[in-house]
């Protein structure tokens, strides 16, 4: 209470200084009146005498009033107000300076605030789950495939769960797509197929209803679903009577039992509903049935390292116990790191570093501006000191000015950041997680204010201290009839310019490296065409298409129909998404070749006839699949050139392979042989920056997987044909939706969008930094030239020709630039390594990039120095000598 009273008193005083003074006067007046009355009554004095006595007893009224004001702290604010008023007056007098300074600071702070809010949302802010930092993803570390984050088989996962001592929850889930029907248009939705324990690990709390339990995880009682807030609002109008209603998922009816809040974005942001995980009997016993993700929660007090060691030990025991587990370890990743992966983290930190450098450069520019101004105001300062202003008072006055400048810049910067945050999500790649949570919140504003404050102090303190430290006599001498500019000021200013240029070299190098990465990726041969290709996903519900014959019939009819659409050149299907997903893989044995322990697994993917032609893949040997490769005919495969190198060094066509390694303990001789009928040129099917793996394609008719990516080669704009393709699908099955209709080029650019995003940002900031630094360099050279007008005049009067004078000025400026560039290159050698995770096909110390950054800067700073030099060369000696 007392603390509150004190606070209230202070705030009232500061907010209403006039009222405070009036009340103090009134109070003292009241005191004097009462005393006067008392004196008059007690001592039989005249009223005047009494008033006089009261005054004497009170003491000096003015003195005590001021002392009271002193105690209240108002005097300090008086001075501050005075300084601020003075500062604003000087700002108004030099509008040009103020505009340039505020704009520069605003650019720096705006960029920093915008990027920091992205970093805050994606990295610093915790995930919206209680104790999210203790939630961990547990992966299989598949050393056989070099995949550190691979999925588990159910028996392995259950062994990990039973034998570990560090996790309080650990259970399985999968992500699945469903065709949602029964409420309007057939709709493709993504679902988490989860064990109820996953809800516990994430402390899920439904908005309404009850989450399903472990009892629901068996056939018969699994007909339930939990829906997300988004689906609840769009499909059910957010009504509470949704509980107990039925929805059709892949043609199967499920009862809605609960609604989870929109913040519950697990396993991914696109997840809209959750159904119980039912593990088939076969998967419960088969240790090589890899299809389960796992999430768990650290027990209280258990560290991540302890959990890693503990689970690692369990995995090692399993590897010794079961031969099929050989080379399988465990990877434990905290959920926050999983959501925003290491590449994105690095990208964000790098970009934050870049904007911080831009802010530094902006600060340096303003510091230089202030230094020049301080030099111009030396007379004023000298006069004020001569009149008795203390050093402290002068420093405070100048600091007030620079803090006000930075505050103005900060406010403008926040406006800029607000604008930038509206545009940024549109430029950002669509798969950037948690984008919706980005915004200017309390943390961002606090950090921005701090940055603004530090900024103001940084660029204000140096000039302020310098100009107040100046000695009266020296100042008077220097601003008198001196010949050259003061040495100290020159050194400081040039040092600042050199530091700026060094920073710009680093930024340009970084931007250059990202640009080279980007160009390298653009040139990477995908091995297939991306032009005029329409892709769309079709997932046939297993409940409706139980026989593979039904699946084969559907796609056969579909391809037949699509190929007749006018404007379609060809069409085909592939089982696994191109450019993102990795197809299933397994160990194989090639006929007549002894398997080796270091054999990599081969990926297998089903394709329709016509698929390879449609995407323009090249058959380099043997034949393509034909309509006669059907179920029932001999199993055949087409392998890629990489697989030929690995398994069939003497030619693949006509050779045979089968699943399972001959070194495995499990008997693979039961598996049928598959004959290689053709060889296709290598394709970077999982992405431009991913390596080519040993790969085999099987005829769709022999795999008959219900989910396919339909690829259509069109004559003109592929997206124009989407309605026709959708109609073709409906004609065969009216309840069947298509999803993710996009061109192959869109798919490709989505894959590299993050790189383009970071390259664009870093590049834009590097150009901004370059511009700022050049303005700074130009400004300083111009200023120094104007200070040396007199010296130049003398030189020319003594016979120096204009060319010589210009060279002198340029040489001076370039010496500074040279130092800056050399230092910048040295720093780059060390700093760019931090971003090496973002580079592809280029070394962080790439000499070409470093060299071009240096040369670019050399050329433009020569220009920045040449312009003032030319002005110097035109100095008229007579005018120069007469000046001042």
């Amino acid at each position: 209470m007392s603390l509150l009273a004190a606070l209230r008193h202070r705030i009232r005083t500061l907010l209403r200084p006039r009222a405070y003074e009036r009340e103090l006067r009134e109070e003292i007046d009241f005191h004097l009146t009462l005393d006067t009355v008392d004196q008059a009554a007690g001592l039989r004095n005249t009223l005047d005498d009494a008033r006089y006595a009261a005054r004497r007893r009170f003491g000096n009224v003015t003195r005590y009033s001021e002392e009271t004001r002193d105690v209240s702290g108002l005097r300090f604010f008086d001075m501050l107000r005075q300084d601020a008023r003075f500062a604003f007056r000087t700002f108004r007098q030099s509008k040009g300076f103020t505009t340039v300074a505020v704009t520069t600071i605003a650019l720096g702070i705006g960029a920093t605030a915008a990027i920091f809010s992205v970093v805050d949302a994606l990295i610093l802010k915790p995930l919206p789950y209680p104790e999210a930092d203790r939630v961990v993803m547990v992966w299989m570390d598949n050393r056989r495939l070099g995949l550190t984050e691979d999925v588990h088989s159910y028996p392995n996962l259950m062994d990990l769960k039973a034998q570990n001592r560090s996790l309080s929850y650990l259970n399985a889930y999968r992500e699945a797509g469903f065709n949602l029907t029964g409420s309007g248009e057939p709709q493709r939705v993504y679902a988490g197929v989860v064990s109820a324990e996953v809800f516990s690990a994430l402390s899920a709390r439904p908005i309404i209803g009850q989450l399903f339990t472990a009892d629901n995880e068996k056939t018969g009682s699994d007909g339930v679903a939990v829906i997300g807030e988004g689906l609840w609002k769009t499909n059910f109008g957010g009504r509470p009577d949704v509980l107990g209603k039925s929805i059709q998922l892949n043609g199967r009816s499920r009862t809605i039992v609960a609604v989870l809040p929109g913040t519950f974005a697990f396993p991914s942001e696109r997840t809209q509903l959750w159904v119980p995980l039912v593990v088939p009997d076969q998967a419960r016993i088969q240790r090589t049935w890899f299809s389960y993700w796992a999430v768990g929660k650290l027990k209280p007090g258990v560290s991540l390292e302890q959990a890693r060691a503990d689970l690692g030990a369990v995995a090692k025991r399993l590897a010794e116990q079961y031969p099929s587990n050989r080379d399988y370890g465990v990877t434990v990743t905290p959920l926050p790191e999983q959501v925003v992966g290491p590449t994105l983290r690095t990208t964000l930190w790098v970009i934050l570093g870049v904007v911080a450098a831009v802010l530094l450069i902006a600060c340096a520019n303003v510091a230089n501006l202030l230094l020049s101004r301080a030099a111009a105001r030396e007379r004023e300062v000298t006069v004020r000191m001569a009149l008795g202003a203390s050093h402290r008072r002068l420093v405070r006055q100048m600091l007030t000015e620079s803090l006000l400048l930075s505050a103005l810049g900060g406010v403008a910067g926040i406006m800029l950041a607000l604008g930038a945050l509206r545009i940024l999500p549109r430029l950002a790649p669509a798969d950037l997680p948690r984008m919706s949570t980005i915004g200017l919140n309390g943390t961002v504003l606090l950090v921005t204010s701090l940055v603004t404050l530090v900024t103001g102090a940084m660029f204000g303190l140096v000039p302020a201290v310098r100009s107040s430290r100046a000695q009266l006599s020296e100042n008077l001498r220097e601003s008198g009839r001196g010949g050259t500019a003061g040495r100290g000021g020159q050194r400081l200013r040039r040092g600042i310019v050199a530091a700026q240029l060094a920073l710009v070299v680093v930024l340009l190098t970084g931007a250059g490296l990202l640009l080279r990465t980007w160009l390298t990726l653009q040139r990477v041969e995908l091995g297939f065409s991306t032009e005029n290709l329409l892709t769309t996903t079709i997932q046939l519900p297993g409940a409706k298409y139980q026989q593979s014959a039904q699946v084969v019939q559907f796609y056969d009819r579909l391809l037949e129909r699509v190929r007749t659409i006018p404007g379609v050149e060809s069409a085909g299907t592939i089982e696994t998404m191109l450019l993102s997903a990795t197809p299933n893989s397994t160990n194989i044995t090639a006929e007549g070749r002894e398997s080796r322990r270091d054999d990599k697994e081969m990926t297998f993917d089903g394709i329709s006839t016509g698929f390879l032609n449609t995407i323009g893949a090249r058959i380099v040997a043997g034949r393509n699949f034909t309509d006669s490769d059907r179920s029932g005919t001999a199993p055949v495969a087409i392998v890629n050139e990489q697989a030929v190198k690995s398994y069939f060094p003497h030619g693949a066509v006509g050779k045979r392979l089968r699943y399972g390694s001959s070194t495995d303990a499990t008997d693979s001789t039961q598996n049928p042989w598959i004959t290689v009928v053709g060889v296709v040129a290598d394709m970077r099917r999982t992405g431009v920056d991913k390596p080519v793996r040993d790969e085999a394609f099987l005829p769709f008719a022999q795999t008959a997987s219900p989910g396919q990516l339909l690829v259509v080669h069109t004559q003109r704009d592929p997206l124009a044909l989407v309605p026709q393709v959708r109609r073709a699908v409906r004609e065969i099955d009216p309840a069947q939706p298509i999803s993710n209709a996009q061109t192959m080029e869109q798919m490709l650019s989505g894959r590299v969008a993050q790189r383009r995003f970071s390259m664009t940002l870093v590049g834009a900031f590097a150009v901004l930094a370059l511009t700022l630094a050049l303005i700074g360099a130009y400004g300083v050279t111009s200023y120094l030239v104007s200070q040396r007008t007199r010296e130049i005049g003398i030189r020319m009067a003594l016979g120096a020709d204009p060319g010589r004078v210009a060279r002198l000025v340029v040489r001076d400026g370039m010496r500074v630039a040279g130092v800056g560039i050399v230092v910048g290159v040295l720093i780059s050698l060390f700093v760019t390594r931090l971003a090496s995770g973002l580079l592809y096909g280029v070394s962080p110390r790439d000499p070409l990039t470093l060299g071009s950054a240096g040369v670019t800067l050399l050329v433009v700073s020569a220009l920045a120095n040449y312009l003032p030099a030319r002005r110097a060369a035109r100095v008229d000696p007579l005018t120069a000598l007469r000046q001042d």
Partner: protein
Amino acid sequence: MIARCPTYSNHTLDTMTPARKSGSAQDELLKGTLDMLVLRSLTLQPMHGYAIVRHIERLSGGVFNIEHGSLYPALERLQKNGLVVGKWGESPTGRRARYYTITAAGRRTLGEKVSAFDRVLAAIDGVMKGA
């Protein structure tokens, strides 16, 4: 209680008013004493400034003859630290006056000061009697 301090009285007449230049140890002691007297007065009832001065003068038998004005910086200091609260009210003559009330923290501080003061006095008393 205040009447119990004869050793303090003789030289306080001139030096009781806090000097303008603040900072010396003696100033702090005097400020502290005045604060203590004000707080003690306010434990009886809320008072305005003039009443506080008169109360101190009356109870000390006119020995504490401070300059009245020095009360106001002291009151500001006490308010700033949350030891008293000032509120405008109506005086018996009908004029507006600012009445000061001691807060809980004020009472606590007063208690601490008084016991510290008592210890000093007891010590001085012992030395004087022993001599």
